[in-house]
Every structure is written in structure tokens, then in C-alpha cells.
């Protein structure tokens, strides 16, 4: 059976209306580190400047700016989007900050996409920033405020509990071994060795290291988790007309976008499967003319703040059957040189997790891979279509972007 080609995003949008074709034409990011000296504004500037330089553009070419950042409480500055807007190149322009928790790393590009796809803008600069080190003694203390004040907070929950409870449910329902989950951390931390911005790359890490690391909230151990980080990342989006007119050669087309959120009543649903990711993926795939994702998608950058999350999300993205992602991982399918490379960037586990700035490994990596600029991380075989996904809020939010060369 012939597989139909993946769409380039031109044509009908999810609502049936006409949308323009949008390309990613530049990307940039700072180092990701536990603590960086630069202010949020300075980090935004560095990433934005790099993205513009890589696209060969200047701020005057940019019609509109979208920024993304996670809770204001990390920085301790409300209206964080306004606070760092100068660094995003946003002043005296139509400027919007978006926030969908951990999903912001991919969602800000979706917001940028609709600015261009609708015809409102020809060029949009998307800048994401996170500075988690400012919050003392640990960003956990403000993270805890995402819990329901009446039902959950009296129990003094730690954020890691979310992941521990979801991971345990996933492992138990599918009878997944911890060794198979640890393989994800090993793969991503090794992949990150080739990433110049990586915070926690480790060429020698083994499954044993992960399984022997400190138990934080069982089944979650220290090396199952991505680290808190400081950093910023940016991408430039442009219309097909602009890309033609300016003869821009390095571009990757946004084929499809999708997002969905589930109820905050998280104790009322089975945590073993991320239904919200599946809904977001189906929306994006429909737009991208993808009806056989496993045959039409060449590589993936799912959100991997925890190792089991990569597996959970691969299943939500319909790139593995329920419970099959650990098997694909064990068989090497998801290695950089495997049949379906997953997190060739090194992901959040290897490069770091400055929440919204993970844009650099999700959208940024798709752009670099699809334009052959990923250097030592380049997937050794030819790839035409990639998918990136992010996740956030109270185990409830998913967003998906499909891109093609």
C-alpha cells in the first residue's frame, strides 16, 4: 500500500479554512546550565539574535513577536513576558507571551504559526526563556503551587509525585521493567554528548548508573529526571512568499499543528495513557495528511522531562502501540541510527530542562535535522518528516508540531 506524502501545511487548517504555508528559517539557543549569570532579558536577546543571524534577517524584517515562558514565580517577576520583551525584540510590535506550562516549549511555535498561516504576519520571531535558578532554595517550592489548593495542597505534595504516580501506573499496566525505562535516560544523555549546549551529557552512562541512582520518589530515581536549568531558545517563522522572495534556502515546513488539554480532575482518569497527546497528535496529523504515522514520520522529539515520559509520549503520538515503546527502545529502534530516531538532540534528559526554552531541542532540533545542520547529532540516514511534542500542566496538556524538509 502506498503511503501518501506528508503535507507541507498549505491548504485547509483544522477549522476547514485556508491557511498559508509556514516555514522555520532560523533557530538559536544559549547554553543550558543549572545557573547562568545572564538575566532573562539578556538570555532572550542572545537566543533571538542567533536565530535572526541564522536566518540572515534583522529585527526590522520581523512583523510580530511571540514569547513563551513558564510560571512567573520562577523568576519572581509577574508579567514576565513584558519584563523580558526587549530581549525578544518585541517592543513597539504586536507581541504576545503564551504559557501552557511545560507545553510552552512547543506551543509558542504553534502561536507563531497561526500569526503567519492566517496572513497577519510574514515573519514572526518566537523566543522562549526560563531561569529556574533564581528561585530559592529550589524551584520545587513554587512548582508545588500548581496543585489544587483544597484537594491536594494540604497533603504537601512534591512535584515529583505527579511523575512517580504516572510512571508507576504506566509500568504496572504494561508490566514494564525499570531497566527498559532507564535505557531512555542512557540514550538521551549519550545523544546529548554532541549537543554544544548540553548540561548533563554523559558518554559513559549505563543502565546500572540509572538504576543505582538515588531514589527520589519511587519509581522515580535521580537519573530518571531532567535537571532544572537556565536558558533561552528562539526560532524564526516565515511565510512561503517571504521565503521565496528572500531566496532563503535553509527552511523546514510546518506540516501540522495540534494541541489538547484534559481536565484538572486528574484523580478521575487513568494515568497510563496520555489521551491529551493522542488528541493533539490526531489534529496535527490530519492537517499534515498523515494517516499512517509510523510509516510517514521519520524521527521524533517527544517531551522527555523524565525517561518514562518519552515512552508514554511515543504511545500518545501513535508512533508505538500502548505498551510497545519500551520494546522499541530495547530493540534499538529509537537510537539515532535506528529506524525511528527519538530525541536525537539529547532531549531534556541530556541537554537540560529550562521549561519553555526546551524549544531548542524540540522545534530547533527538527529544523537543524531537516536542513542537515545538526553536525554530530545528524541522523545518519535521510529524514524528511519529524514530529515534536511537549507536555505540561497537571498531567493534562499536550501539543504537537509536524515538520517536513
Amino acid at each position, binding site marked *: 500500500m502506498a503511503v501518501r506524502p506528508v503535507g507541507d501545511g498549505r491548504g485547509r487548517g483544522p477549522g476547514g479554512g485556508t491557511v498559508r504555508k509556514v516555514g522555520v528559517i532560523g533557530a538559536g539557543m544559549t547554553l543550558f546550565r543549572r545557573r547562568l549569570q545572564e538575566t532573562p532579558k539578556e538570555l532572550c536577546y542572545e537566543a533571538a539574535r542567533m536565530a535572526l543571524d541564522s536566518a540572515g534577517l534583522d529585527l526590522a524584517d520581523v512583523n510580530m513577536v511571540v514569547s513563551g515562558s513558564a510560571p512567573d514565580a520562577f523568576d519572581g517577576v509577574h508579567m514576565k513576558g513584558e519584563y523580558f520583551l526587549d530581549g525578544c525584540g518585541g517592543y513597539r510590535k504586536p507581541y504576545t507571551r503564551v504559557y501552557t506550562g511545560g507545553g510552552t516549549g512547543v506551543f509558542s511555535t504553534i502561536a507563531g504559526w497561526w500569526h503567519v498561516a492566517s496572513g497577519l504576519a510574514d515573519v514572526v520571531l518566537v523566543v522562549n526563556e526560563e531561569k529556574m535558578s533564581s528561585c530559592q532554595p529550589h524551584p520545587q517550592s513554587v512548582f508545588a503551587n500548581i496543585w489544587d489548593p*483544597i484537594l491536594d495542597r494540604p*497533603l504537601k*505534595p512534591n512535584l515529583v509525585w505527579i511523575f512517580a*504516580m504516572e510512571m508507576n501506573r504506566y509500568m504496572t499496566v504494561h508490566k514494564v521493567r525499570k531497566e527498559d525505562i532507564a535505557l531512555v535516560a542512557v540514550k538521551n544523555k549519550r545523544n546529548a554528548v554532541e549537543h554544544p549546549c548540553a548540561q548533563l551529557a554523559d558518554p559513559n552512562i549505563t543502565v546500572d548508573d540509572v538504576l543505582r541512582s538515588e531514589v527520589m520518589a519511587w519509581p522515580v530515581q535521580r537519573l530518571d529526571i531532567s535537571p532544572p536549568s537556565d536558558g533561552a531558545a528562539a526560532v524564526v517563522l516565515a511565510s512561503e512568499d517571504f521565503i521565496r522572495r528572500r531566496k532563503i534556502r535553509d527552511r523546514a515546513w510546518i506540516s501540522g499543528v495540534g494541541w489538547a488539554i484534559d481536565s484538572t480532575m486528574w484523580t*478521575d482518569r*487513568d494515568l497510563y495513557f496520555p489521551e491529551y497527546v493522542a488528541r493533539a497528535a490526531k489534529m496535527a496529523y490530519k492537517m499534515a495528511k498523515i494517516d499512517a504515522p509510523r510509516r510517514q514520520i521519520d524521527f521524533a522529539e517527544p517531551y522527555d522531562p523524565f525517561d518514562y515520559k518519552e515512552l508514554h509520549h511515543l504511545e500518545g503520538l501513535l508512533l508505538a502501540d500502548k505498551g510497545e515503546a519500551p520494546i522499541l527502545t530495547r530493540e534499538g529502534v529509537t537510537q539515532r541510527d535506528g529506524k525511528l530516531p527519538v530525541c536525537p538532540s539529547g532531549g531534556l534528559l541530556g541537554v537540560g530542562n529550562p521549561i519553555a526554552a526546551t524549544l531548542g531541542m524540540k522545534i530547533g532540533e527538527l529544523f537543524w535535522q531537516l536542513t542537515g545542520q545538526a553536525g554530530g547529532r545528524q541522523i545518519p540516514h535521510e529524514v524528511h518528516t519529524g514530529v515534536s511534542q511537549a507536555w505540561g500542566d497537571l498531567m493534562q496538556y499536550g501539543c504537537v508540531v509536524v515538520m517536513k524538509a
Partner: protein
Amino acid sequence: MTVRNTKWPGVELSAADLHEGKVTSTRFRPDAKYAWSAGEAMSRFLEELQAGRLIGRTCGKCERILFPPRMFCEECFRPTDEWTYVRDTGTIETFSVSYLDKDAKRITEPILVGVVSLDGASPKMGMMHYFGEMTKDDIHIGMRVKAVWKAPEDRRGSVLDIEYFRPVREGES
């Protein structure tokens, strides 16, 4: 661009740089306090907790018994219909053995915590709570548990009016 780019911006700091004043920095401690009105559904829920009971709401359209209770059904998008008690027994849906407190500080005696789906509510509907009278080796998904309530005079109208859920004993339903 990663192939073309040779310089990646960012100056790394150590914890000492920040905490021992080796870099210029400034500090601020917010003093924010909140008082939340519990709303219609949660007010009744908390009053019932103080009385030693768990209560839900029914939706006559989808025929679910919703727990925790709410005044509208998010599925049918219409008002819920009636108050109904659910039991204080249930099944562990998932759990964690936590060596972290709320500030990510390490603790040696682990907290057993998880989600209990409650008998009498629709399937999979429940609440997060602690577990007790069991060890980290006993606890498992599917385990039948029952609430241990604080003494009536110690209850405050809070989820903490339940101390924890313990294993259901032989002879108990």
C-alpha cells in the same frame, strides 16, 4: 546552524558564586498570603469530611457519580443533579514511595502517597492521599484500602480529616 555556530552564549555560575556574593546579585522575599473561598461543591465536601463522610454529585445525563463533587458536569456541560455519599473504602490506582518533602528536601522515612478510587463513585474516580499501616514493600496497585479518620474533635473540614488509608482487614467489605 549548529554546524555553523561556534560560540554558544551563556556564563555558567556555581552555587557558591551566587550564595557567597562572588557575583553581583540582589534578593527579595515575597510575603503573599491567600484565603480561598471553597465554593459551592467544595464547601459541602469539606463540611462532610468534618462529619466523617465522603460525598459526590450525580449527573443524570451521563449517569456518573462524580467524585470529587462538582456543581456542573464537565462532560455534559450541564448542572449536576444530586448529592450522594460514596464509601470510605477503595482501591489503590497508583502510588509513590517518596523520599522528598514539598521543597525537594530529602527525608529518611518515606511518605507513601497515591490515588485511591472510591467505592460508590464512578470507576477510576477518587482522590490523592497518604497510605499507612503498611510498608513500602506491602503497598501495591489494586490494594483494597479504607480511610482512617481523625477523632471528631480534631477534624477541621479538610482532606487531612482523613489521616491516611490503611489496608482493608479481613471481614471488612
